[in-house]
């Protein structure tokens, strides 16, 4: 479904590389976790895949469903089924959650050959999704993320994911800011959504989330590269040993990270 090949990325207009040759392959039905210390490039990878205009790809490619997405705008990628749950969800005063979601749902539905829903149909559709992340219906009529607590914002991201039914979900530190109860609810929702036809990439600092969402693969990112990949046990090793023992991998190719 997703293949990232030798991806090099800079912040637009700057020279310093943030990603220094990332390779990653994600197949349908898989859950991947990307872990790593602060500033390793994990979040950048997710944002670049979603088309953030702040970054420029200087080398390599991102292939999604057999085609390069590099020339696609963020909205086109969303239409193609890519979803990014933001680390810091943006407040949009004046636009209610339900308005944004219906608008999003219908534009994405139109481009993916699903049926568009009128406001009443949409109300019905959305009820189950609310229950999935245990959100109160009042949330629908509140302005998007405005005045939400950190945890509510994160939960709202997963709610949006549930409504939009993406094929590839990139979840950028969705676990941070959630207390243990909320984390369980969110993880439970993600597990229920996940099936054979979609894939999830979890970006996280901590192993904690992986107790609830079990990944097929775990990758460690340090210094703008994936330095080690393995199964779910790798996450436990990291929990135990930290990242230091992997630092050497980052410089193996002769460049300091």
């Amino acid at each position, binding site marked *: 479904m997703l293949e990232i090949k030798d991806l090099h990325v800079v912040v*637009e207009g700057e020279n310093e590389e943030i990603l220094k040759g990332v390779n990653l392959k994600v197949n349908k039905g898989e859950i991947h976790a990307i872990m790593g210390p602060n500033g390793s490039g994990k979040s950048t990878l997710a944002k670049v895949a*979603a*088309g*953030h*205009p*702040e970054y420029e790809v200087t080398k390599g490619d991102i292939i999604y469903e057999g085609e390069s997405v590099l020339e696609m*705008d*963020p*909205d086109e*990628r*969303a*239409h193609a089924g890519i*979803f*990014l749950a*933001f680390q*810091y*969800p*943006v407040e*949009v*005063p*004046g*636009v209610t959650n339900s308005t*944004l979601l219906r*608008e*999003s749902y219908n*534009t*994405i539905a139109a481009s993916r050959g699903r049926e568009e829903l009128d406001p009443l149909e949409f109300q019905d559709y959305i009820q189950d999704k609310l229950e999935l992340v245990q959100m109160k219906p009042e949330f629908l009529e509140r*302005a998007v993320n405005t005045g939400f607590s950190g945890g509510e914002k994160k939960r709202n991201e997963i709610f*949006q994911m549930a409504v*939009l039914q993406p094929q590839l979900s990139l979840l950028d530190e969705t676990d941070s800011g959630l207390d243990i109860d909320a984390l369980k609810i969110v993880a439970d929702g993600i597990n229920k959504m996940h099936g054979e036809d979609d894939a999830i990439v979890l970006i996280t600092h901590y192993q904690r989330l992986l107790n609830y969402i079990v990944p097929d693969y775990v990758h460690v990112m340090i210094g703008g590269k994936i330095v080690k990949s393995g199964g779910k046990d790798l996450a436990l090793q990291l929990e135990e040993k930290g990242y230091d023992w992997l630092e050497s991998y980052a410089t193996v190719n002769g460049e300091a990270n």
Partner: protein
Amino acid sequence: MALPSNVEPSVLHNLAKHAPGVESAFMKKIREQSMEALNRSPFPHRKMEDWRFTDLKPITRTEFVSMDEAGIRPAIDVEKYYIPESDRSRLVFINGEYQEKYSSIGGLGKGVTVGNLADHLDDKEVEEYLNKLVNYENDPFTHYNGLMFTDGSYIHLEKGAKAEAPIHVLNLYTDSVKPYVSTPRMLVVAEEESDVTIIEDHIGLSDNKYMTIPVCEIKVKQKAHIHHARIVRDSLEAVHVSRPIAYVEKNSEYHSYTITLGAKLSRNEPKVIQEDEEVDFTLDGLVLIDGEQIADTHSTMDHRFSHAESHQLHKVVVNGKAHSIFNGKIFVRRDAQKIDSFQENRNLLLSLDGLVNTKPQLEIFADDVLCSHGATVGQLDAEEVFYLQSRGMTEEKAKEVLTYAFALETIENIKVNSVHQLLIDEVYRYTKANNVDKVTA
């Protein structure tokens, strides 16, 4: 009745000789006072501190003529601008002249008097307050209005009277062969414990040049409430110079919302003056401008007694080569303690050629006060645009939504449904019409 002028004559001084005659001694006196004041009030120029950012060319480079010489064309589709809530509480003026046939004033209930000022010159409140409340020193626009107006809105609420419907003051400006100057006038006196909502609308019916100089005097007595929405929808070639002044007595509330969409050049100078303790007032503004529009707000909030709460949120969206100017004066006099005053001017700059000048001006002489103020000028946030795009909206749509959201806050407070909806549509039209440059990263 032209007197020798003490200042260099301007268009206003030159047109003064066309002042319409009046019969009542009361009005004659207003004319004389206005003439005398006009003759010592110089026309503004950019060396004056209060005018240094304002390009007055739309006035100085236009040959305004008297109403008689202007070749006024008839008003068309007047009914189109009615609002349903004010079906029986509407005053209509065309180029400043009262229109009985379009006005409808039967639906306000007991204790509310609404009509043409010219028909109420003998009312004791008119004699007491007309031209007495207005206080714009050395301002030729104000004095020109005093010299020229004959008709005007008069709104009076007796003690305890609650207007049963919002009062729509509909000022329409017609097309003409040559540019003219109109001088709408308004006097509002709300006695103790009364309550009224006023929608003051200014609409250009064509795309012609004209200048309108509305002067509005408001007295809010003890425990009275006034909600005052002012909508500037003048022709994009027009000049709009307004002077609304409100005096607030003990336990009263005055909330004003000025929405500026039209006019090539607008200069709004609202003032609120506190006359006793325990008052609550608002001077909010929303400005949406594009092309070569200039929108200038110079406001004054004068806290003279203790225990006042005041609020001023002035939001501006600038596109094209438009220019916004904001100068917000807040005075807190020496004995005015326990003042809670909020002022914020937020500007959204959508184009590279747009310009914003902003200056909060606080003069505080009391020591136990809470005055917050702030001014920001910014573009749409790239992260916000990306967020909406990642949810499937095009970049254009995302910018529309964010601009709309920015503007919405101010109009949320407009209580009259149809006007609220109309303004939402106007905001939407503005954001829609925008060919926003690529302003984000």
